[in-house]
Every structure is written in C-alpha cells, then in structure tokens.
C-alpha cells in the first residue's frame, strides 16, 4: 500500500470513469458529476505526489484551491442547468443545440 503507483492507478481509473460520464451522459447533472470525479482524481494525484515526494505542503495547497474551484464551478453549472430547464423543459445537453443551426 505504501506505493505511489497504486494511488496513481486509482486516480487514473477515477479520471477515466469521470471522462466516460462526461462524454456519454445526456443529462446535464450527470455530466457535472463526471467533472467532479475528474477533479477528485486530480486531487488524489496532487496529494500523492506531496506525500511521496518529500512531504511538500504545496501539493495540499493546490488541492485546496482545486476544491474551491470545484465549489464555484458547481454553483455556476447548476445555475446554467436550471436556466436550460426553464428554456427547454429538459436538461439533456444534446438537445440544447440552437447555436448549431
């Protein structure tokens, strides 16, 4: 368990699952969940390198800022999703395609 590689592999699996949700889900909220998974996997990498690279706290600080970013991003994304619902009566991201025409 005291291996850098196992943490990196876990983070890679989490990243791939999040990317899978982002590219296959139609529901806007589910896409947002995928983005949260991706941010979490990045955070695991930051903290793992902080722990195994000589305990430098800069990795922790960066992970903290990523969490702050994620909170701001979730609030704005949900505001956009609620707007989408009011305009289209649906939050499927592939139906909001007026700009394509």
């Amino acid at each position, binding site marked *: 368990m005291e291996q850098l590689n196992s943490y990196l592999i876990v983070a890679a699996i989490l990243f791939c699952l999040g990317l899978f949700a982002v590219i296959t889900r139609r529901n806007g909220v589910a896409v947002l969940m995928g983005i*949260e998974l991706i941010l979490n996997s990045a955070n695991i990498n930051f903290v*793992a390198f902080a722990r*195994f*690279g000589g305990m430098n706290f800069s990795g922790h600080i960066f992970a903290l800022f990523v969490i702050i970013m994620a909170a701001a991003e979730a609030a704005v994304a949900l505001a956009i999703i609620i707007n989408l619902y009011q305009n289209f009566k649906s939050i499927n991201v592939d139906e909001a395609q007026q700009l394509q025409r």
Partner: protein
Amino acid sequence: MAEAAFWLVVAVTLVSAFIVVTSRNLFYSAISLLFTFFGVAGLYIFLWADFLAGVQVLIYIGGILILILFGIMLTHKITSVDIAHTSIQQGVGGIVVLFLFAALAWMIVRTPWLVAAAPEPQGTAGEIGKLLMTDYLLPFEVASVLLLGALLGAAVLSRKGN
C-alpha cells in the same frame, strides 16, 4: 490490517464511482457519489492529508453534493418517474476511455518516479495555514474574489425572467 483497510477504501471508491457513471437512475448516481467522495477522503487520510480529508467531507459532501441534489430536484418533477436518464454512444466512449486508461497505466508503470522519504507530519492544518498566510497569500485572496463572483453569477443566472 492497514493494507486491508486501504484496499477496502479503494474498492468503495471505485465501485461507487462505477455506479455513478453507469446507473440509470439519477438519484442512485448522486447517492453513489456520496460514497465516492467518502472514499477519496479516506485516501487522503492514507496520504497523511488529514486537513484535506476534513475539507473534502465538508465541502464536497456537505456542499457540492447537496447542490447537485438540489439541481436534480429543481429540474425533475419528483412525482413523475422521469428521473431515469440515458447515455449515448457508450461503445465508442468506452473504447476511447479504455485506450486512454491503457496509455495512462503504461505511463505510470514505466516512469521512474522520484520518491523521497519524509517523516509523517504531526497534523497538517498548521503548516497549510502558515503557507496560506505567507507564500500563497495572493491566490488565497483571489480565491475569495472568485467565490464572490461565482456566487453573484449563479444568483443572477438562475433568476427567472432574464
């Protein structure tokens, strides 16, 4: 014992993340996300990041997950059974993601990472607080402005009739 606990945390994280990605019911996805966030907090504890584990539980589970649940409830009629959601192009997406994971895993295993031994810190909150008030003071202040901007932006965007 610690080894078993580590693999248990990893299993909880990955299995619940898989359910988040594949479940047909949006509520099940959101509840699974709860266990994923708890699992990641557990991984932080294994990585000696106790302060970050607390922040993860407070902000992700207490804040972001509640926001997501609000988003689900405000955009679906609770009484209707329309809460199921679908996926598109799972085959192509799965192949792309599998290739990406293979590339990442190959890179992770092949790279000789620089590993430096370090003593276990006695609590990380103090060190993080010192760094936030010295080296990272400007990003810390900018983050507060960013949060204020996001708050105002979300409030303006979600008002009716704009």
